[in-house]
């Protein structure tokens, strides 16, 4: 409004004298107004800065990566657990051996017992306090859990889960938050001595510090910041790293504002958690909490004087003073910090002298921050992204509880890398040319226990378990046979299939003439034998009778949620699938015809430990019990006497394992999918360049599968027999009813009423040569 009144004033002017006076007045007014405007703008700007400072400081102060945990190990009497497994788990959790364990996270072995003090931990169903207990073993089994104080039996107890990785913010900042009361006073002293001696007395900026810095800079001694801790925090927190006067002014104003709103303690705590202290690959180490574990492998609370001095010394240049890369430089810097501390009377001269000759104490290898299980982690990340925004995963500090079983994972990794090497050496295959991938799941609940994405399990790149799309060859056959067995009036395990030459001619496509692996034709073969020996021709003919679409529909029901073009060659596995997809549809077969989505996550908790989301077990019956039973019995025959019989070199026949081998054209892909009573494993072996690998399913993938399972103490596969199943003796070559003891007789399960009625020459009542069948072993 004022400028307008100034304009109107001129019109009314009549006398020169007064006009001069008035002009002067006008000038003054103008100046006043202008300065008011400037002040107003400045005030507005400060309000804006104030707003920025407060919202950013009070809002989400730090982007906290999601923390990903393995499954917690549940201990209970009766648990199958080798003492060596428990030792491995405790090592993974960083439990320390102690003579009489009292601290949480310590243990002691004594004969067949472990004395153990667990760490407190908050799970999805609430907190579990630390407890002190004794675990007794007999062989590879836990026999008792008792409280050490009162010897009372403990029914069950979870060890805290191992941290297996994080999902980091876009800038890859990682940190472990600490509260000020967890920070050793020595560290705070060192920080204040070196960075900001008047921290507790200034109001955000320190004029004396600035003056000193100016003098130092002008005299050319050094370019010193003169910034207070508050200013440094502001700089890290809100501003870019450019060096301009404007930025410096902003920094000072914001520092003053920060001090108006927040206590020294709050500012210090935030500073301690914010600062950058090192680099681990592309992961940035932020805050003293993480730096302490990164450099010394211990919690910040436990660091001593020289360690505190080293960390504080590194603030000036975490790369330049890196104690791992430049230990001499770091040592010099640390001793300088000790000197400053002595000068500020935080430590005595003796402490200074003793400190100067103390070694750096940095651990050679930082504890792993980047996940040791990148393939599993990428599955977790993928499943989480269905439900969470990526930025929330990377910043909200969510706690992700997964299904990874480190013991199983280790066994799987070892099996894959060692066996691929052995295959290359034993078969004259070029070294490092083979690749592989595998998944292991829990048969009944679909939890993924292990994922290996390649022969180097630490490699973070291409994850073959999830992303390699390869033809699966004969792994598809069980779906063809299942489709048949679901029509018990037309097909049974004894049905004779035609394995004579087949030529499929369709307009618009090339002629199709499937061949068997042995290049022979087998004439009429019982359905169960065709699967056991993986005959292509009879399978193709069966599939064509059933119709390719009905086979593929069945595959969809079993768990492959995508449209497939559906060529005749699909019946022999020409379509490509990832190992994960294969695991999904074999899971359904292995769990009795119940489709159970594979899960890598059990639940998600907030940063504060509040349950956010559970991923409950879901099952859907997609195959009727009798059909699934018949198919599984046939898959057991594959292992007992079919293409996977070589498994017996590694695993006892009593396990009654079920499985299927798969080999593709020119030995490009070697597959094996198989299951016991408790675990399902899917293995692929081949070459990344899709060149022939020279391995069948049985000579390649199956041997990896076997090696992986050997150390896992599998449960035998004991199939519950559905009510509507009966067992009938059949003469194999004719498919007619026979009797126990007749030549060529096998006892096969049938859906009640579907068994052949016509009798073979050696029928019920006659006597023949007793033949011991593998079925007898199963059903006895």
């Amino acid at each position, binding site marked *: 409004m004022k400028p307008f009144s100034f304009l109107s004033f001129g019109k009314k002017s009549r006398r020169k004298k007064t006009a001069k006076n008035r002009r002067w007045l006008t000038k003054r007014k103008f100046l006043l107004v202008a300065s008011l405007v400037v002040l107003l703008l400045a005030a507005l700007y400060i309000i804006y800065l104030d707003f920025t400072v407060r919202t950013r400081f009070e809002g989400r102060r730090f982007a906290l990566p999601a923390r990903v945990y393995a499954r917690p190990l549940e201990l209970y009497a009766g648990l199958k657990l080798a003492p060596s497994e428990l030792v491995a788990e405790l090592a993974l959790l960083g439990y320390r051996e102690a003579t009489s364990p009292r601290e949480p996270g310590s243990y002691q072995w004594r004969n067949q017992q472990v004395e153990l003090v667990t760490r407190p931990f908050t799970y999805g169903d609430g907190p579990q306090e630390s407890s002190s207990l004794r675990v007794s073993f007999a062989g590879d089994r836990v026999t008792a859990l008792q409280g050490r104080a009162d010897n009372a039996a403990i029914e069950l107890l979870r060890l805290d889960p191992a941290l297996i990785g994080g999902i980091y913010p876009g800038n890859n900042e990682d940190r472990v938050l600490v509260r000020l009361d967890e920070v050793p006073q020595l560290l705070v002293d060192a920080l204040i001595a070196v960075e900001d001696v008047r921290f507790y007395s200034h109001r955000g900026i320190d004029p004396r510090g600035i003056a000193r810095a100016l003098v130092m800079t002008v005299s050319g001694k050094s370019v010193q910041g003169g910034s207070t801790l508050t200013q440094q925090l502001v700089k890290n927190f809100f501003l870019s790293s450019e060096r301009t006067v404007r930025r410096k002014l902003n920094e000072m104003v914001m520092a003053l504002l920060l001090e108006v709103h927040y206590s020294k303690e709050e500012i210090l705590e935030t500073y301690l958690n914010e600062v950058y202290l090192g680099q681990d690959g592309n992961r940035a180490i932020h805050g003293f909490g993480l730096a302490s574990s990164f450099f010394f492998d211990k919690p910040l609370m436990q660091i001593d004087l020289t360690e505190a001095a080293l960390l504080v010394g590194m603030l000036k240049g975490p790369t330049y003073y890196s104690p791992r890369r430049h230990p001499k430089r770091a040592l010099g810097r640390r001793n300088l910090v000790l000197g400053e501390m002595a000068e500020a009377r935080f430590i005595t001269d003796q402490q200074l002298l003793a400190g100067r000759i103390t070694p750096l104490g940095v651990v050679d290898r930082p504890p792993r921050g980047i996940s040791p299980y990148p393939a599993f982690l990428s599955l977790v990340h993928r499943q989480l992204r269905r439900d969470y925004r990526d930025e929330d995963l990377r910043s909200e500090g969510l706690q992700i509880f997964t299904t990874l079983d480190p013991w199983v994972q280790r066994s799987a990794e070892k099996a894959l890398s060692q066996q691929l090497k052995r295959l290359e050496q034993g078969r004259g295959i070029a070294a490092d040319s083979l690749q592989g991938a595998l998944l292991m799941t829990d048969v009944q609940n679909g939890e993924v226990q292990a994922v290996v994405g390649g022969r180097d399990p630490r490699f973070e790149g291409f994850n073959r378990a999830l992303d390699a799309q390869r033809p699966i060859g004969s792994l598809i056959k069980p779906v063809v046979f299942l489709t048949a067995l679901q029509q018990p009036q037309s097909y049974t395990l004894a049905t004779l299939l035609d394995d004579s030459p087949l030529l499929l001619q369709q307009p618009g496509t090339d002629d199709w003439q499937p061949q068997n692996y042995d290049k022979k034709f087998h004439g009429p073969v019982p359905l169960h034998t065709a699967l056991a020996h993986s005959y292509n021709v009879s399978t193709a003919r069966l599939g064509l009778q059933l119709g390719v679409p009905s086979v593929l529909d069945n595959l969809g029901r079993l768990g492959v949620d995508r449209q497939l073009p559906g060529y005749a060659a699909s019946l022999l596995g020409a379509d490509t699938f990832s190992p994960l997809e294969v695991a999904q549809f074999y899971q359904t077969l292995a769990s009795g015809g119940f489709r159970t989505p594979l899960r890598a996550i059990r639940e998600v908790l907030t940063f504060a430990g509040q349950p956010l989301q559970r991923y409950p077990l879901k099952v859907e*019956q997609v195959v009727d019990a009798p059909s699934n039973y018949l198919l599984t019995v046939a898959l057991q025959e594959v292992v007992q006497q079919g293409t996977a019989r070589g498994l017996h070199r590694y695993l006892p026949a009593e396990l009654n394992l079920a499985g299927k081998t798969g080999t593709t054209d020119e030995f490009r892909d070697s597959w094996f999918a198989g299951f016991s009573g408790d675990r399902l494993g899917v293995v692929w072996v081949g070459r990344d360049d899709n060149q022939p690998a020279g391995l069948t399913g049985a000579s390649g993938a199956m041997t990896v599968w076997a090696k992986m399972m050997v150390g896992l103490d599998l449960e035998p596969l004991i199939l519950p027999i559905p009510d509507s199943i009966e067992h009938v003796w059949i003469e194999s070559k004719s498919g007619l009813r026979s009797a126990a003891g007749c030549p060529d007789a096998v006892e096969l399960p049938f859906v009640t009423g579907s068994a052949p009625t016509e009798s073979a020459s050696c029928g019920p009542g006659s006597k023949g040569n007793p033949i011991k069948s593998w079925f007898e072993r199963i059903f006895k």
Partner: protein
Amino acid sequence: MIALRRIIPLLLVLMLVGCTVVQPTRPRPVASSSSAVVALLDRAHSQNAAGELEQAGASLERALRIEPHNALLWQELARVRLDLGLYRQAESLAAKSNRFAAGNRTLQGENWRIIGQARSGLGDYRGAQAAFDRAEQE
């Protein structure tokens, strides 16, 4: 205290049996020989009573990790899902329980009853009736 914990699930099972026809000649379903499973089942029951159905489900899943072939646990989980109105889940879980309940007609009968209730919830009244009929046969 421990004896009490063992008795509670047994009582519940008895109540469950009482819902059908009590036939003392048949073997009574025992929850589990594992005290860990009994403890978890116990916890699931109290969570259920407190209306914490999701947590009850979580406890049952924990128990199932210990005894994945325990038909009673699958049935309890089916019932929790039924109470949550997750009818398809309830139906499939009861069928899964049946898979492991061979020879245990009491459990099977109860599973068919759950299947019947689930199907009613889904509006499949004919299917429900068939399941209830089946329950009577068991």
